[in-house]
Every structure is written in structure tokens, then in C-alpha cells.
């Protein structure tokens, strides 16, 4: 069983998802940033929050679709890596990782400020930084060792914190002095947009819903609903907090405060209100920081899994099951960022803006990824929630544009830092990732607009002597069908074992044999320039196992080797082959390679559903040696004149070729009129290297219908014989 084995318990309902998303979002951002926001945009900073919320909403919409289409850990990073390939994956991965660490450091410093400022003799940067570090260490411990029963506690704290903010807003609305709101936008539109860049960090967190998509009940409904609703509600809350703050205290004096919300609260809620706000600010900082550390470690973990960074990170703790190395690395860098606070006066704004920058870049690439996913429509991407028509492509386009607008208005130093991180991602890709990562992204398919639906030909290999020829035929078949999908070969070897059990080791030589076969197949494929995957299967019944592989791979065609003999112990071709011929739901070709070269094939075309399939297969096989196949029809000379028969025969060939979508220059036509059809067939086909014959339709019951003509071909023709059965 693969690593996909096992389901995840869907334990998160709507309320849990909302708490998770909202609780992660409502954090230190709203307690610390109103001061800085007021300073740079005045009362209009409420609009900055609204814009930031709108940008977040757009990202939430795109992420909702991606998350329901591909629920996998890693969030935005993963979607971008998958859609746009390793380069952008590295850029977004590093950006998100550093961004989340900026955010985490920001929360922890803010946490220290709220705790220290109200107590005069504890003032001082050193103390704030020290408190932040202590808090960080505690959080790292919790995340490293894991905690049991923490979610109930978290729900209570998030509930309390939200209730305190609601009271602050509800009461505060009555204390707004409209005079304070004049002038509303003292720094103009530029100030508003620039502030948007700073406060965007307050919205980080809704993405966690996408990250845990696999654990959410009824995902197609709850994921989009909780993402959208949590962003909208939080935006409204933030806008109100900002209006109340700037309405109660003139924005100039609000701007000077490192603990603005608490300064506002004291005006109308008294000391008790301040204590409540300090309490709320601290839990908010802790819960946001906790989520950021967790999210950061998940990003670096996912990068390790995809090979973007060393897979050293890609290990979870043997006892606590936490990504402990990723957490340790994240914690170390975050601690350094907090320490920078000792030296840099404006560290809070800087961290907030740098984190916002990284995420704005990440989310604009998420929007692009959504477009790429839609256009490329890869296997396995089947979102249960898709943005409806007017929203798509409006949401991704608007999302990218707005993100860029906000980024363009950011402080120069932030743009420099942010660009440096992006540059680092690019360099990292060039120096480390490239060459290691197989993931190419879907960009090319998306631009070409071609279906990435592969055309998959499955080739069971068992015999080293024939596998080369089989793979060549399969490659030719797949390539000839390139118009129906990207050609792809799957070589599979089934080792029969009476009672397969993971505990019972296969005899070593059999396992070696299997590995050699598949490795050899790889070498052959590499020489032919086709994509090949290999699968090794151990199963009691070869035929059943092959059917299962065909189903799993959604195979379009299977090419089976066969020894050219008929009737084995009650089976027509052999027990495994019979099973596949009877039950496979794709085109089946049974090939007996009697000759090295495929050369010029001839297809025996008869009226009926199999005719076009056989004709097309002959054309596919002809591609191996670049020949033109002959479509042969044999008419019995019994009734009517020979020329009538000739005309009838040509009509049969033309019909079949047309049904198979062949151009007249892709084949030659030959019609033979004879008394003994079987004899004529054997004689006529004797001149060709490979004979393609149809097996009549889908057999009913257990017997495989087997015409006498086919039997004569199998028995008497010297060249290669391919028996074809359409799906």
C-alpha cells in the first residue's frame, strides 16, 4: 500500500473550521497595528483593513477551490509548486516560511509590549524581547512535544478573546467623537494603500482551513463557507475596531502608542477594560504565533517532502508525531528575528510589512495556479467547489492585480527585503532544487491548453527476451495517440505469490528479477523518449492483479505479450491473459513477437465494431519502423461477381478507416476475393511482417469467441501476430 493508504478522520465541522480560521486570524495584528495604521492613514485606515480583507477574500476564494480539488498538507506552497513547478515552488515556499516567521516574531514582540507597557518599571526593549523569547520557547515546546486536549482550551480562549473585542467595539461605538474622524484620510489614497500592506498580516490564518482540508466534514460546503465567512466577519470586526479606535482617540496620539487598543479601552471601559484587553491581546498573540509556527513548520516540511529542501526536515518525531526538525529550525530563525528587535526601533512595522509582502506574493501566485489548474485540468484535480462563471476568472485576475498594487506601495526597505527573499528562492532553485525535483508543474500544459489527460498504455512485462519489442510497440501506440492525450507508458510486473503477506518476504531472487525487468524497461524507454512508469505488484492472481492495475491507471490500452499458442489447460491464451482479454475495459492487444522487426503491418479488416480498432492499431504499429500499413479485406467469391466483391471490400476498408479517423494516405488498401477465405488470408498476410487481427467484440460468458480465420492466422502465419480487441 502506498503512503496514501488510510483515510483521515473528518473531525472538523463548520464551527471548528470557523474557530480555526477566525481564531488564527484574530491575533496580535488587531491589537498592535492600529497605532501604526492610524499614523500612516488616519481614520481612513479602516478602509486599509477593508481593502486588505478584500484581497484576503479573493485569495480565500481561489484557495477554496484548490483545497477541495487537492486536499494536501502545505497549503498555498503546495498548489503553486504543483501548478507552476519547482522554481515558483521554491520562491513561494521560502517566502511563506520566512513570512510566517516574520509574523511569529511580530506576534511575540507585540505580546511582550502588551505585557510590559502597563507596568512602568518593567519598561524597556530588552524586557519586551526577553518576554517574546520566553513565550516563543514555550510555544516551541508545545509544538515540539505536541499537546493533548489543547483544542478545547483553544476554543475557550478564542471565544473569550472575540467576546472582549466585541464588547470593546459595541461599547466603543457610543464613544466615537466624530470630530476625531475629521479629516478622514489625511494622507490620501497613497497612505491608505500603503497601510493596507502593513495590516495585511492581520488576515493571515484563514489559509489554515485549506491546510486541514482533509479533516473537514462535508468539504465542498464547509471549506468555502468557513473560509469566506471567517474572512468577511474578521474584516468587519477589524474595520469596526479601527473606526472605534480612531473615533475615540485622535489618530495622532493613537499613532504614538505601542498598545493602542488598550489606550482606547481605558477611555470608556476603565482599568477593568484595560486588563481585559491586555488579556485578550496576550492570548491573541500566543494563538496567532502558535499557528504561525505550526504553519511555518508545515511549509518547510512539505518542501522537504517535495525535495525543494533537504528531506532532513521531512521526518516527524517518532513519539510525538510532530514535524520536530521543521519546528526546531523555524523556532531558531524566529528567535533571531525577535532578537533583531533589540537593535531596530521600527521592528514591529517592519516584520508586519515583510510578512505581508511574502504572502501577497504567495497569494498572487496562488491565483495564477488556479488558472493553471483550470486550464491544464490534471488527473486527480476535481474540485468539489469550483468558482462559478463570473467569479472565475474575475477573482484570480483581480487578486493578482490588487496584490501587486498593494506591494507597489510598500516601503522601499520592505520591497528590498521581500525581493531579496524572492531572489533567494530563485537562487535556491538554481543551485539546489533544479535537477533534484521531478515536478515540472503544469504551466506548459496550461499554456498549450492541451488536455493533460494522458494516453496511457500499460505493458505487462515478464520476459526479458520480449519486453524490448513490447515496449517499442507500446511506445509507438502511445505516441500515435498523442492527439488523445500525453503519451505515457506503464510497465508492470506481477509476481504471483500464493498468499501475499507483507511479513512474508519474497524470495530474494524473484524480487531481484522483478527489479531487473523494470529497470531494464526504464532503460529502453529512455532510449525511445517516452515517459515510462513502472509498477511492481505481488498478488495471488496475475490476471486479477493486471485488471486492477488497468483500472487504477485508467489505461487506454494494454499490450500483452503472448507465446502464440492456443488452448492451455482449459484456457484460450493462458489464465492471466484470458482474464484480461475477457474483462479489461480498454483496448487490448495480444502480441506474439516472432520476428525482430515490426516492419509493414497488415490489418485484417472486417465489418463490425472491431474493424476501426484493428485498423488504427496497425497504423500505430507501423509507426515503429515508419512504414505504411495495409488494410486487408477478404471477400468470399461465393455470391455476385468478383468486381462487386472487390467494391464491397474497399467499402469495408474505407468505412473502418474513417471510423478510426485515419487519413487515406496513412494506409494502403488491399482486397482479396477467394473461395477459401482462411487460406487467402494466410497467403495474403504472409508477405507482411506483422499481422493484426481482431478478436470478435466483447465476449459473453466465460468463453472467448475465436474465429476460424483468426485461428489459422495464429497457426500458419510466420510473422508477428497481434490479436486486437476493442474496448
Amino acid at each position: 500500500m502506498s503512503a496514501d493508504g488510510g483515510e483521515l478522520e473528518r473531525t472538523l465541522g463548520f464551527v471548528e473550521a470557523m474557530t480555526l480560521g477566525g481564531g488564527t486570524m484574530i491575533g496580535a495584528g488587531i491589537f498592535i497595528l492600529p497605532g501604526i495604521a492610524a499614523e500612516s492613514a488616519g481614520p481612513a485606515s479602516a478602509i486599509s483593513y477593508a481593502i486588505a480583507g478584500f484581497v484576503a477574500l479573493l485569495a480565500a476564494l481561489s484557495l477554496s477551490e484548490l483545497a477541495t480539488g487537492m486536499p494536501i498538507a502545505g497549503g498555498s506552497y503546495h498548489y503553486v509548486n504543483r501548478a507552476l513547478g519547482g522554481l515558483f515552488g521554491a520562491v513561494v515556499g521560502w517566502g511563506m516560511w520566512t513570512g510566517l516567521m516574520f509574523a511569529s516574531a511580530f506576534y511575540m514582540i507585540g505580546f511582550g509590549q502588551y505585557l510590559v507597557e502597563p507596568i512602568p518599571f518593567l519598561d524597556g526593549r530588552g524586557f519586551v524581547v526577553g518576554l517574546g523569547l520566553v513565550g516563543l520557547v514555550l510555544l516551541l515546546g508545545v509544538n515540539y512535544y505536541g499537546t493533548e486536549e489543547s483544542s478545547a482550551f483553544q476554543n475557550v480562549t478564542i471565544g473569550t478573546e472575540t467576546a472582549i473585542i466585541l464588547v470593546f467595539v459595541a461599547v466603543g461605538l457610543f464613544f466615537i467623537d466624530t470630530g476625531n474622524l475629521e479629516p478622514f484620510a489625511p494622507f490620501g489614497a497613497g497612505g491608505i494603500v500603503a497601510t493596507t500592506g502593513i495590516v495585511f498580516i492581520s488576515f493571515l490564518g484563514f489559509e489554515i482551513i485549506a491546510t486541514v482540508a482533509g479533516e473537514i466534514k462535508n468539504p465542498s460546503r464547509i471549506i468555502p463557507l468557513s473560509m469566506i465567512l471567517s474572512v468577511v466577519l474578521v474584516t468587519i470586526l477589524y474595520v469596526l475596531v479601527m473606526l472605534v479606535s480612531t473615533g475615540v482617540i485622535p489618530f495622532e496620539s493613537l499613532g504614538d502608542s505601542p498598545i493602542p487598543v488598550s489606550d482606547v479601552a481605558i477611555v470608556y471601559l476603565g482599568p477593568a477594560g484595560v486588563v481585559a484587553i491586555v488579556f485578550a491581546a496576550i492570548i491573541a498573540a500566543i494563538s496567532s504565533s502558535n499557528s504561525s509556527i505550526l504553519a511555518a513548520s508545515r511549509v518547510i516540511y512539505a518542501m522537504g517532502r517535495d525535495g525543494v529542501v533537504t528531506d532532513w526536515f521531512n521526518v516527524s518525531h517518532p513519539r510525538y508525531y510532530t514535524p520536530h526538525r521543521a519546528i526546531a529550525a523555524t523556532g531558531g530563525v524566529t528567535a533571531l528575528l525577535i532578537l533583531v528587535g533589540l537593535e531596530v526601533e521600527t521592528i514591529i512595522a517592519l516584520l508586519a510589512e515583510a510578512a505581508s509582502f511574502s504572502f501577497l506574493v504567495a497569494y498572487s501566485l496562488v491565483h495564477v495556479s488556479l488558472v493553471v489548474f483550470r486550464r491544464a485540468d490534471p488527473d486527480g484535480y476535481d474540485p468539489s467547489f469550483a468558482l462559478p462563471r463570473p467569479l472565475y476568472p474575475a477573482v484570480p485576475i483581480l487578486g493578482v492585480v490588487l496584490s501587486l498594487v498593494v506591494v507597489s506601495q510598500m516601503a522601499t526597505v520592505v520591497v528590498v527585503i521581500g525581493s531579496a527573499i524572492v531572489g533567494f528562492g530563485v537562487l535556491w532553485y538554481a543551485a539546489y532544487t533544479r535537477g533534484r525535483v521531478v515536478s515540472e508543474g503544469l504551466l506548459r500544459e496550461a499554456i498549450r491548453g492541451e488536455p493533460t489527460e494522458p494516453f496511457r498504455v500499460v505493458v505487462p512485462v515478464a520476459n526479458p527476451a520480449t519486453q524490448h519489442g513490447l515496449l517499442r510497440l507500446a511506445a509507438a501506440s502511445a505516441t500515435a495517440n498523442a492527439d488523445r492525450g500525453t503519451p505515457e507508458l506503464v510497465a508492470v510486473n506481477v509476481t504471483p505469490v500464493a498468499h501475499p503477506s507483507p511479513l512474508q518476504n519474497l524470495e530474494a531472487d524473484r524480487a531481484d528479477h522483478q527489479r531487473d525487468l523494470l529497470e531494464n524497461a526504464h532503460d529502453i524507454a529512455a532510449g525511445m523518449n517516452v515517459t515510462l512508469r513502472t509498477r511492481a505488484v505481488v498478488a495471488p492472481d496475475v490476471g486479477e492483479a493486471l485488471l486492477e492495475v488497468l483500472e487504477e491507471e485508467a489505461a487506454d490500452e494494454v499490450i500483452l505479450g503472448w507465446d502464440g499458442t492456443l488452448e492451455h489447460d482449459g484456457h484460450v491464451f493462458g489464465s492471466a491473459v484470458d482474464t484480461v482479454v475477457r474483462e479489461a475495459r480498454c483496448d487490448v492487444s495480444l502480441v506474439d513477437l516472432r520476428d525482430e522487426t515490426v516492419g509493414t503491418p497488415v490489418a485484417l479488416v472486417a465489418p463490425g465494431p472491431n474493424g476501426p480498432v484493428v485498423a488504427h492499431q496497425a497504423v500505430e504499429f507501423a509507426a515503429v519502423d515508419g512504414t505504411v500499413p495495409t488494410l486487408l479485406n477478404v471477400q468470399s467469391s461465393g455470391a455476385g461477381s468478383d468486381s462487386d466483391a472487390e467494391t464491397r471490400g474497399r467499402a469495408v476498408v474505407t468505412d473502418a478507416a474513417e471510423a478510426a479517423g485515419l487519413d487515406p494516405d496513412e494506409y494502403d488498401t488491399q482486397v482479396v476475393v477467394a473461395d477459401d477465405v482462411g487460406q487467402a488470408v494466410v497467403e495474403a498476410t504472409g508477405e507482411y511482417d506483422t499481422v493484426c487481427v481482431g478478436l470478435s467484440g466483447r465476449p459473453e460468458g466465460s468463453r472467448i469467441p475465436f474465429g476460424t480465420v483468426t485461428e489459422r492466422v495464429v497457426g500458419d502465419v510466420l510473422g508477428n501476430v497481434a490479436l486486437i480487441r476493442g474496448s
Partner: protein
Amino acid sequence: MTRLGDLTILVPVDVSEAELPPLDVLDHLGAVEVVLLGYFPVPDQAEPALVRDQHGSTAAERLDAVAAGHATHDEVLVFTHDREATIDRIADEYDCNAVLTAGRATTVDRILVPLRGDVNLDRILGVVADLLLAGDETATLFNSVPEDTDPSQGELLLMGAVDRLVEYGVDRDRIDWRLGEGGDPQTDIVELGREYDLVVLGETDPSLRERIIGDVLSGIVDALDGPALIVRDVE
């Protein structure tokens, strides 16, 4: 009235442990359907998807190893934050009447069935009847009477239950009953349980999250060496 053999038992196994519980008891239950649930408990702070990434194949192998040699109807592997929720959900999905906790038992000849009055009685007796009809065990029905109360009530309950099993088609020779007068039912059941190969218990309060294994119940189950079969109390 004869019970039909439609008994389906859910057997949860913690696949995060390298040492897996013996399930010999399954081979002695006769023709019952067994759904094997391998659950991997994921700590709150850890992410199930991540744990599956890392331990999915090991867990699947362990589950296969547990299943090997026993006639199991279905196998499910779940990574979960909430073991009880998973057991509940899977039991619902597969229509399981009872949940088996593993314990050491090489044979199943004697079954102890503690009864606590009318709670869940129909279901418990239904499951016991199915068990007895599917295999060839004997069952002892047990009721613990609190001190200072009239023991006749307990007798009545037990005799009624025996009659019910006979109605279901179980041979009367295979059922006996026993009245405990020790006082604390929990201790009684644990003490007595040692003499039996399997204990059949009813779910406790269905309104609680831990309804499958409530506090009293888990105390008993933990103290028992042998396996216990917990009869579900849901529609």
C-alpha cells in the same frame, strides 16, 4: 423466533504500536462478520495528513499483518485525532452491532454477560444470541445486586433474559445465570471476568461522546485481561 446470524463486530486496533494485540479470539467466535479498524491516534498538535505521509505504509502493513490469518470482512485504516469518533463512525458505516476490545484469549468457551437492568438489554441479548448460535460457547448471565436490596429483582431480570435467549433458539443447557451480592458491580465483574474467556458489556450513556467506552466501562475493560465485546446502543 430465531435470530439470524447478522452479527457484525468492529475490532479497533491501534496501529501506531509496533506490538499488536492478539486477535485469536476472532477465530473462536464462529460465523460472525468482522470489520477490522486500524486507527492511528494523532496527537492534537500533529497533523493527520503528515502522520499518514510518514507512517501510512507501516500502519497499512501492520493492519494487514493483524488481519492475516483471520477471516475479516473489511479492513479500514484511519488517521484520527479522535479515536472514539472514528470507532463510532466506522461502526455506523459498517453497521456493527458490537465493538471488540482485544485481550488475551486462546479459546472462547465461556462468556460472561453482566446485565444492568433494562438499559440496552434487547441489543445485548440479541448479540449474545447471535454469538451462541454462531459458535458453541456457554454463557453466564450476571447481575450485581446492591446491598440491602431485594435480590428477587435481579433474579427476575436474569431469568427473563435466559428465557429470551431460549426464545431466540439457544439451547437452555448453554446458559446459566448468577447473582452477585458483593456490592460494587465493577469489582464483581472484573473479579468474575477472570474466569471467563470473553465478557459482553453494554454501552453506557449514549448521550456522551465516550458512549462506546464510558468511564465505568473503560475501568472494567482495562482491568480485564481477556477480550470484551461492547454492544452498541444506537439505532
